[in-house]
């Protein structure tokens, strides 16, 4: 019964992530009209699932093991109640924030939820503050890193292509290099993290695939160069294709990174119920990751379409070069964080990347207290989710 409830709660959380959070990964591509909302929903649901199943275990373990010290919690019932409290409080907070249109991070919510039950169960010592501080610093550093990367990528594209006397000629030359870099990063990280084929093999595979793609890109660019009508149209059409790739890359990495928010506590509950012991190391079964991925995909399919349609209609001034910079930077930051085992927030990295391109005079960005909202949500999410989780824990521990 408890396992069933844990599955339902974990699925609900994954569904909420899919419904609300996934659009962040595809928003700029839909906004820049690189893909339609329908295509975005289909692509996102498949890739989020694959990312979650193939790529998700590492971050899941970081959250489960890192925030609450297992040795402090001695009774299995406490850990089960805590897992439920963390999951339910996060789901409620995300749902409430979604209704209010508040920019909260699912990652922040679950970290707060875990910390809340830990404190309620065994006091302040239950929380591994060293890990907590490193996570908190990653929340500050990740948007900064996303912003800096987006700024640099946009400036580089500006310098190498957009500001040239003939941008079409420049993109013909630089395009294959950009294709090479994009493919290299994706394949390299895929090799290291997903296939786990080691550094050397990953570098070789990435080099071969990226070189093939760049050669293919070179001939395609030559063809497009001959039939072009306007220089900037050619440039945009190239970045449109690259942006579709980077959006897929964002979606995949989002699935890998954020599935932990839904299935982390579920993995703890399942482990404790099944084994009856509290282990410092909690294995995450593949079906748990698949359940998380499935929940995200269902969320995207059922509610994501409406959200993406709104985005496609609302963001009218974004073009493909700027969208590519935002997507590429977001994906790279999320994936690198995933490799380092840091549970970062995709929302904040997207924001950092948008601001980065804005600072580089690439896009006009609305203020409307948006930046203030980021800081507010930043500050509010963890204590609120923790408080709610602590209250729920006090109740659940008596029931279970």
């Amino acid at each position, binding site marked *: 019964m408890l396992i069933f409830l844990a599955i339902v709660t974990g699925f609900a959380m994954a569904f909420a992530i899919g419904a*609300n*959070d996934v*659009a*962040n990964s595809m*928003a*700029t591509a839909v*906004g820049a009209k690189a893909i339609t909302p329908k295509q975005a929903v289909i692509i996102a649901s498949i890739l989020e699932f694959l990312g979650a199943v193939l790529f998700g275990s590492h971050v899941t373990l970081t959250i489960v093991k890192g925030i609450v010290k297992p040795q402090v919690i001695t009774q299995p019932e406490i850990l089960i109640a805590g897992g439920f409290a963390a999951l339910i409080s996060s789901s409620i907070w995300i749902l409430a924030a*979604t209704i209010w*249109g*508040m*920019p*909260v991070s699912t990652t922040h919510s679950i970290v707060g939820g875990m910390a809340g039950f830990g404190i309620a169960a065994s006091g302040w010592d239950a929380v591994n503050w060293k890990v907590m501080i490193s996570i908190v610093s990653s929340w500050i550093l990740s948007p900064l890193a996303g912003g800096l990367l987006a700024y640099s990528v*946009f400036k580089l*594209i*500006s310098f190498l292509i*957009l*500001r*040239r*006397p003939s*941008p079409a000629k420049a993109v013909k030359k630089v395009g294959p290099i950009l294709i090479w870099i994009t493919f290299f990063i994706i394949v390299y990280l895929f090799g290291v993290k997903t296939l786990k084929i080691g550094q050397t093999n990953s570098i070789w595979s990435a080099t071969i695939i990226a070189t093939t793609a760049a050669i293919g890109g070179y001939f395609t660019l030559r063809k497009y160069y001959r039939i072009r009508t306007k220089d*900037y149209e050619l440039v945009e059409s190239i970045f449109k294709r690259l942006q579709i790739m980077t959006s897929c890359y964002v979606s995949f990495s989002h699935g890998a990174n954020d599935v932990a928010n839904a299935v982390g506590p579920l993995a703890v509950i399942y482990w404790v119920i099944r084994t009856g012991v509290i282990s410092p190391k909690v294995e995450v079964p593949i079906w748990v990751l698949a359940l998380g991925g499935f929940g995200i995909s269902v969320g995207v399919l059922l509610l994501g379409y409406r*959200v*993406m349609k*709104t*985005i496609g209609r*609302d*963001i*009218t*001034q*974004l*073009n493909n070069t700027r969208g590519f910079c935002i997507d590429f930077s977001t994906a790279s930051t999320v994936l690198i964080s995933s490799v380092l085992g840091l549970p970062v927030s995709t*929302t904040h990295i*997207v*924001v950092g990347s*948008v*601001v980065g391109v*804005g*600072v580089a*005079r*690439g*896009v*006009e*960005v*609305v*203020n*409307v207290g*948006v*930046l203030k*909202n980021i800081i507010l949500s930043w500050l509010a999410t963890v204590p609120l989710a923790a408080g709610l989780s602590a209250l729920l824990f006090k109740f659940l521990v008596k029931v279970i």
Partner: protein
Amino acid sequence: MTRFVGKMFPKQSPLKLLYEHAIVTHNAAQFIIPALNSYFDNQSIDQMCTQVDILEDKADELKVMIRESYSKLKFVYFDRVDILTILHEEDAVIDAVDDFLKSLTLNKLEKPLTKDLKDLLFELAQNSFDSVHMMTMAVEDLLTLVESSFSPSIASEEDKLTAKVETDESRTDRVSLQLGKKIYSMKNSMHPVDLYFLEKLAGLLTRIADHAENVAERIRMITHT
């Protein structure tokens, strides 16, 4: 969260709205010569006045949208004051066009104009329209400049265009001066009200070109910062 991502971008690009405003102004300016022709052919220009009124209303709506949008923007391509100054000047162009057309409905000349005077008046009208046309192109090029991430080569193209508006404007000034002299030289043969009327028409046409040139000047300034 998604609404949050959407909110980071303005619903409509203020720069594109500015270009739309320039097109509306251009469309209004297209009535200058047909209205003048109709006036001398003794035909009604009321319909044209109504159409310019409609365009002016549309321009006002766009003006409000641009102002609202700019008040919410954090990172912008150009300084807000510069863009609002350009908008103000574009607005002054459409206002002057409206005034010109309405002025034509106020008075009928007692005597037909001499050919050289009429030719000068038409030349001035054509020059004013040309200035507005070039102004619209300069605003359109701002979009390309942004797309090119402020490429020096695009900025130099923009320079040539704004220089052309300024040349047009100085030509307009010359023709306006000539026309003014011609009008006042007829003080003994023309009814004083007609003289005042023609001088006012010339003044309005010159004002249109002046404001178009102000737009170009401001564009030249912002493309060099």
